[in-house]
């Protein structure tokens, strides 16, 4: 990564941490905030797809699908933004789905690492933890506080990874 990219990644990590802190302090509006983030994310994704079509995918066989996907995501983003009052179900599905998927992948990774005599325990613990969180989301689906807390934990984790990765050495030496 260039120095500028490292700074950018670090700042985005800081912003995520800030977002998590705001959410924790204002749990009541937490769900609405999360829905806003989801809606904006979908909207931005739609724009990105359209830009992707214009700069790259239009040169690809069957690239028009990217344009259609972009328009669909934009529309879906608008739709989500109208659901602030009915946002709970969407957030529950998002959180539970994401954690269950991550957990499953980690458990499979642990099994694979064990087969190759690699380090597997951390992956297994991470996988079990994620699946537990997914189940938690479903059990405590009525508690805005807990759902917001789980979302915040995910944000803090991602922010941490980002901030650490901005310090990682990535360059490779070449010796003639």
């Amino acid at each position, binding site marked *: *990564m*260039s120095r500028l*990219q490292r700074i950018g*990644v670090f700042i985005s990590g800081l912003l995520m941490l800030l977002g998590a802190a705001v959410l924790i302090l204002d749990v009541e509006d937490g769900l609405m905030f999360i829905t806003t983030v989801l809606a904006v994310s979908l909207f931005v994704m739609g724009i990105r*797809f359209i830009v*992707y079509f214009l*700069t*790259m*995918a239009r*040169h*690809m*066989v*069957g*690239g028009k*699908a*990217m344009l259609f*996907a972009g328009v669909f995501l934009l529309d879906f983003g608008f739709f989500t933004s109208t659901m602030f009052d009915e946002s709970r179900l969407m957030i529950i599905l998002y959180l539970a789905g994401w954690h269950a998927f991550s957990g499953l*992948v*980690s458990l*499979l*990774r642990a099994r*694979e*690492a064990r087969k*190759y*005599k*690699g*380090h597997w325990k951390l992956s297994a613990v991470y996988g079990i933890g994620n699946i537990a969180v997914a189940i938690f989301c479903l059990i405590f689906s009525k508690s805005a506080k807990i759902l917001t807390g789980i979302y915040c934990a995910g944000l803090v984790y991602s922010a941490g*990874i980002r901030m650490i*990765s901005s310090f*990682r*050495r*990535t*360059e*490779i*030496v*070449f*010796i*003639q």
Partner: protein
Amino acid sequence: MQIDFHYYATYCAAYIAGYSHEESLDLCYSAQFVDCCTKTLLSGIGAPESAATTQLQLEMMEARTDLIGLQDITRIWASFHFLPYDLHAEVKKGSKVYKDKYRLICNTNSDLLVETVGLAKDRGLQAAGLAMHILADTWAHRYFAGTPSMVINNTNDYFYELIPEGDGYREEKVQFRHNPAGADQFGKYSYINTLYQLTENSVMCLGHGRAGHLPDYSFMRYRYLPAWGNYEEIIKDNPSDYYHAFTQMIYALKFLRGEEAAFEKEHYDLEAAAPYEERITEILEKRQPDAAADWKAFGESLSGCEIPEFDIEKYQEEYRQAPKEEKDNTFLGQFIMAAMRQKSMVTNRIYKSGSLLAGYSIDYNENGFGGIKDFMMLLRDERREVRS
């Protein structure tokens, strides 16, 4: 390509090129080990993870597709399985990102292949085996790029298998399905491929994932529309390509042994393979998912010695048990060194072409050492070579 070619066929090529049975075994072991040397395996034996030459399916699923993750994936797959053909190709369409990705498309007889084989010269059987894996894969994996990219590596519905019939070929429409636990159904022309995802950098669009294992079967012939090809179809003739790979390996190995003065592009040792052409062609054309048994029988008929099955754990204990200062001298230590050298070289060439898809490369002669500490072993190796 699979173990049948990387292990058994490489043994045959090495033996025909003049290596002894034992040398050929070490060489083909190294060629096959390229498909096994994952970060998971390396961490298990306490070796530097930067030397990974491949990734497990789940390693890739877990890998982050952020900038660092993508560069790591590209370094591995472009260096060892999809050697780029022309890093300075004229691309008159698309953005810079498109151009950078287009330039990573793998093909045969590239400048990078010449460098790859040259890098293995006088550096042991492990380096030679590793180079043979890369050389062979340029034939099987041509037209795909070793970086996640939908605009380059995607395939669509237009995909037909060509089956020899009489003097020509019969065409059968290929059906792809995504089922990681399933198997290819040759009788139904139904094959497993990766999931279609609407994401440019999805690992599902790495290499030939979208075309399933078809490039890896030696008997396979097919025609399709590559995503990058502007609606011009490609006809892939694996038996012919694999035969070229085999004869080019013999030529390259003769160069590595010192029998040929130079390794040049478009050179194949057809003469050395001629006495065996019929048998080799028969193996390559036989419609079977794994030709290991046939190649093994051929190899054993060449040398009169038994070729043991590939054992992934064969040299791991030696590496684990070796004292720290001796690890580089073990079998796997030498393999790891060759892998790091290759990865460093390819990353440098991609970087110098103006692309950051494989990350930054620091020229030691100009800037001294920097970056990932694992690569310090290249410096140790360089000093050893200078001393000797």
